[in-house]
């Protein structure tokens, strides 16, 4: 079909006009959005600067002086919540308590049940964070469903909120969540569980399935016992070093090293001859810490281990024992009849210390 030239021209003109209008409209819209964001940013910076000065005066007012903070405008309250949460990782003690009072005075915590169910991820995350850092125990029930949130960041903040309040009624859902997570995140998950404090350990002992049925939770148990230096967990840790799972054994050894109880040395020492190198490497770290200078013969034996990591840990363990350990390393390094591996690792460790001017 052929269109008359006048019609083609008209279509072209109108098409260009419509396209031009669309592009101009989009440019104007973008500029408008940018302008709005710039204005919001300027407002945020101005408010933050003013609040920083006010917060310092509020937190550090002298003894006996009542704490006062200027009134926060209703439209700025959301901004102020974010401002306050910036300090949660920084402040402790009386100042953290004062920060909590300031937050409660604002009254925004009353909207938490609604915000915890909000469709916007950032709003749910912020609400969960507030429950955790401002220790709002009365909202914990409302946080539990967020452990099944599709956004990992939100579930993590929800778990943190539940642990930071130290309420063991929520231990089960949090432990279940931890066990659903990937193993490579173990360190991050441990930090979350530490929030419950050492009281979680007896709870775990009472509630976990036996290690034969489910080993992973017992690895977390052992690592937590170590990070809390929980002496009451030592009998269970001694049972765990005899468990056939290498990961459990190595984790329990790590915890026993943190406890450093000489009475456990006789039970730990045979693991220096374990068939799995991961256990021997951990034993090499633990022996000196638990046994002190008595561990030197066992550590010397480990310096000729075929695995470098075991030898390195053994040499480090000896150096950490001070004069007695360093003397043994020097003797090893200079003994022409000593095992080649042992001699080399002793020399390596001594040279390393020499370069840095300390043991």
């Amino acid at each position, binding site marked *: 079909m052929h269109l008359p030239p006048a019609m083609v021209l008209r279509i072209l003109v109108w098409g260009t006009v419509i396209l031009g209008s669309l592009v101009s409209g989009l440019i104007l819209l973008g500029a408008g959005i940018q302008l709005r964001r710039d204005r919001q940013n300027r407002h945020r910076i101005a408010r*933050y600067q003013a609040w*920083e*000065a006010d*917060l*310092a*005066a509020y*937190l*550090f007012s002298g003894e006996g002086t009542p704490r006062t903070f200027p009134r926060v405008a209703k439209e700025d309250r959301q901004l102020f919540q974010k401002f306050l949460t*910036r*300090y*949660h*990782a*920084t*402040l*402790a*003690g*009386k*100042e*953290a308590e004062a920060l909590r009072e300031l937050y409660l005075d604002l009254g925004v915590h009353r909207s938490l049940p609604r915000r915890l169910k909000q469709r916007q991820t950032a709003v749910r995350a912020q609400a969960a964070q507030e429950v955790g850092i401002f220790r709002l125990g009365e909202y914990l029930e409302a946080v539990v469903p967020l452990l099944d949130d599709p956004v990992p960041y939100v579930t993590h903040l929800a778990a943190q909120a539940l642990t930071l309040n130290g309420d063991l009624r929520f231990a089960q859902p949090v432990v279940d969540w931890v066990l659903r997570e990937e193993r490579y995140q173990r360190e991050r998950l441990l930090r979350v569980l530490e929030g419950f404090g050492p009281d979680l350990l007896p709870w775990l002992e009472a509630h976990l399935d036996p290690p034969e049925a489910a080993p992973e939770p017992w690895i977390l148990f052992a690592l937590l016992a170590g990070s809390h230096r929980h002496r009451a967990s030592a009998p269970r840790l001694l049972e765990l070093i005899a468990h056939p799972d290498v990961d459990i054994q190595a984790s329990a050894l790590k915890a026993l090293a943190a406890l450093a109880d000489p009475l456990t040395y006789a039970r730990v020492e045979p693991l220096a001859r374990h068939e799995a190198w991961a256990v021997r490497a951990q034993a090499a770290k633990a022996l000196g810490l638990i046994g002190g200078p008595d561990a030197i013969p066992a550590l010397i034996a480990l310096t000729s281990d075929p695995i470098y990591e075991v030898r390195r840990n053994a040499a480090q363990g000896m150096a950490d024992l001070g004069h007695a350990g360093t003397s043994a390393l020097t003797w090893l390094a200079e003994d022409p009849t000593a095992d080649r591996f042992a001699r080399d690792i002793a020399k390596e460790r001594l040279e390393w210390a020499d370069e840095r001017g*300390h043991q």
Partner: protein
Amino acid sequence: MSRKWPDPTRVLVVEDDQATARLIQARLEMEGLKVYVAPHGVEGLEILQREPIDLVTTDLMMPAMNGFRLVQEIRDLPPPKGRVPILLVSSNQNEQDMIRCLAAGADDYMTKPISAQVLVERLWRMHQRSSSAG
């Protein structure tokens, strides 16, 4: 408790989180201290070489030059600058890092969250020790 800081006592605060730095600065200025703030170790070292700093408090994890490296660099300076008391403040609770920093020459170590009251008290003790050591 009342502390009588010598006038002037200059403190260098090396901290990459500006909000935290300003809060620490406000608390230390309330004590009557003169405070210099640097966002990382490189600038901190420059200030230390330029000004007669009496105490240093530094974060551990920072861009450009971290706290561990800063401690090493300071301790490599000739005295008296090389002997300035250093307090490390970090959110990292790793025991090995603490040992590493103390071995590198830091005088004390605090982990975040911190109480500003405790921070001031630690700085005061460090200052007292360094004054009595001459």
